[in-house]
């Protein structure tokens, strides 16, 4: 356990890197911008089929989460890039050999590192929700829009439910990013494959075989968030409990596969 804590503390020091901070900054900035655009469209009286649901929910306790949730896919993509690039960089930069000489138990090192990286991703997401939420609240109050429902007990419950599912979603995405990095051992390959998988490959499978694709990791992680507030994305077709179970199984599977591969790898970087 001490080795895992050491690996965790060691990883925390590396969050000072601009590339890591830029990932968190991008998540906050772009998500807040998307929330602003969504708010602006609704507040300026936009109409249209796509906006109908959001407009209807605007003054309800779901209003704030519905606006903030519009950037959910982007948060998933940034988290995936952040995790896979961060881990794969240890191979690309050659720093992995330094680390594994100091901590020969590779799985303990990976556990400590991933704990820190996942925590960073979750804190970035939390910061994104806080900054974006506060920004939208300030905008709404500035325009005299009633926000009492958003901050009501029901509004808070919906927000926490959304947050819980978002946490599970990002843990799943991080586990996927970890496996991709361990398999590819290169930043360029890891980021390319991660983005291609989540944005293109699963999309193609969804068109060809929608019944099968609903069980794929990207789709499962995405839809469990939509289960709280359907306005922020598709709800799980298989039902929330089944999607939740599938998420947990995917996470366990990714962790097991990484744990199987890493100790057997030759570190040639």
């Amino acid at each position: 356990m001490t080795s895992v804590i050491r690996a965790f503390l060691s990883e925390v020091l590396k969050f000072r890197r601009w590339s890591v901070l830029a990932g968190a900054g991008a998540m906050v900035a772009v998500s807040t911008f998307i929330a602003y655009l969504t708010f602006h469209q609704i507040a300026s009286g936009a109409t249209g089929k796509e906006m109908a649901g959001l407009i209807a929910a605007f003054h309800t306790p779901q209003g704030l989460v519905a606006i903030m949730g519009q950037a959910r896919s982007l948060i998933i993509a940034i988290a995936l890039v952040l995790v896979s690039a961060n881990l794969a960089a240890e191979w690309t930069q050659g720093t992995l050999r330094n680390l594994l000489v100091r901590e020969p138990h590779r799985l303990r090192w990976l556990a400590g590192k991933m704990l820190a990286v996942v925590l960073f991703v979750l804190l970035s997401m939390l910061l994104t929700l806080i900054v974006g939420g506060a920004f939208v609240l300030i905008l709404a109050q500035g325009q005299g829009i009633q926000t009492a429902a958003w901050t009501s007990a029901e509004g808070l419950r919906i927000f926490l439910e959304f947050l819980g599912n978002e946490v599970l979603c990002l843990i799943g995405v991080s586990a996927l990013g970890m496996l991709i990095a361990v398999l590819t051992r290169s930043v360029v390959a890891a980021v390319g494959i991660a983005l291609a998988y989540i944005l293109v490959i699963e999309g193609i499978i969804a068109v060809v075989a929608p019944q099968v694709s609903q069980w794929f990791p990207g789709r499962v992680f995405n839809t469990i968030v939509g289960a709280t507030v359907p306005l922020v994305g598709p709800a799980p077709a298989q039902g929330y409990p089944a999607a939740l179970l599938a998420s947990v199984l995917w996470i366990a599977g990714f962790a097991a596969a990484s744990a199987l591969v890493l100790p057997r790898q030759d570190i040639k970087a």
Partner: protein
Amino acid sequence: MNAIETQGLSKHFGKRAAVDGLTMSTPAGSIAGFIGPNGAGKTTTLRLLLGLVRADAGSAAILGSPLTEPDGYLARVGALVEAPAFYPSLSGRTNLGVLARLGGYSRSRVGEMLEMVGLSDRARDRVGTYSLGMKQRLGVAMALLPDPDLLFLDEPANGLDPLGVIWIRDLLRHLRDQGKTILLSSHLLGELEQVADWLVILHEGKALFCGPARDLLAQRVEIAVEAEDAVRRELVVQIAEGAGYAVTRDERALRIACPASFAETLNRKASEAGVTDLAIRVKEGSLEELFLALVKGDRP
């Protein structure tokens, strides 16, 4: 007692044998020069000994612990393998801090190491702004962080200016005097000649020589024999090869890789055969010449 002992250690990458049945040893408290041409398997051997790659066959013991249990010895090992690898956007101090936290070493140890390698003034600067020599110094600091009993250093003088080369030479001697063992891989054979008291010469994944440096350096003599006609030269070749020494033929001269004492034997045997006007010169070769002779197979 040996700090490193390998028996038939092998590692293949696909069909290529990077390390091929390597048997070598390094006595504790010595500076062992680890020499070999590019692709000889030096770096792969270092990686094997550090538990970074897994051996296909053979065994090894490092500081008394088997290779299969790296956690038994790595806490007492420091390493700088290939070019030093750091996080370029972090400072030198933070880079060392990352490894200090991982290894459970105190923060003060980081400061001490930076002081030792002369990087205290630049410790807060990003490593990306460091020169090659400064990165090398930081790499040495990284290797020394755990106050190791055994050090693996791969080309530590790479990128250092002449003062830096002298500094590393003095540092290595100082560490040896403290009882530490150093396996030093380097292409700077002149430097190795000055500091190494043990040599391991690697070629195509096998050890061509493993033993005290003085034993090898004692062989660094060659005899040059000049003779006008081919018949006389052929006689010399027969005498030398008959004694088991390799002969290199130049235009009018022959070079024999052998101890200096063989000059007298050669002269006597040639006289007995009726050849008395041979010009025999004893020439002292460098470690570089010895190394080349060994790798080319000129020396038995």
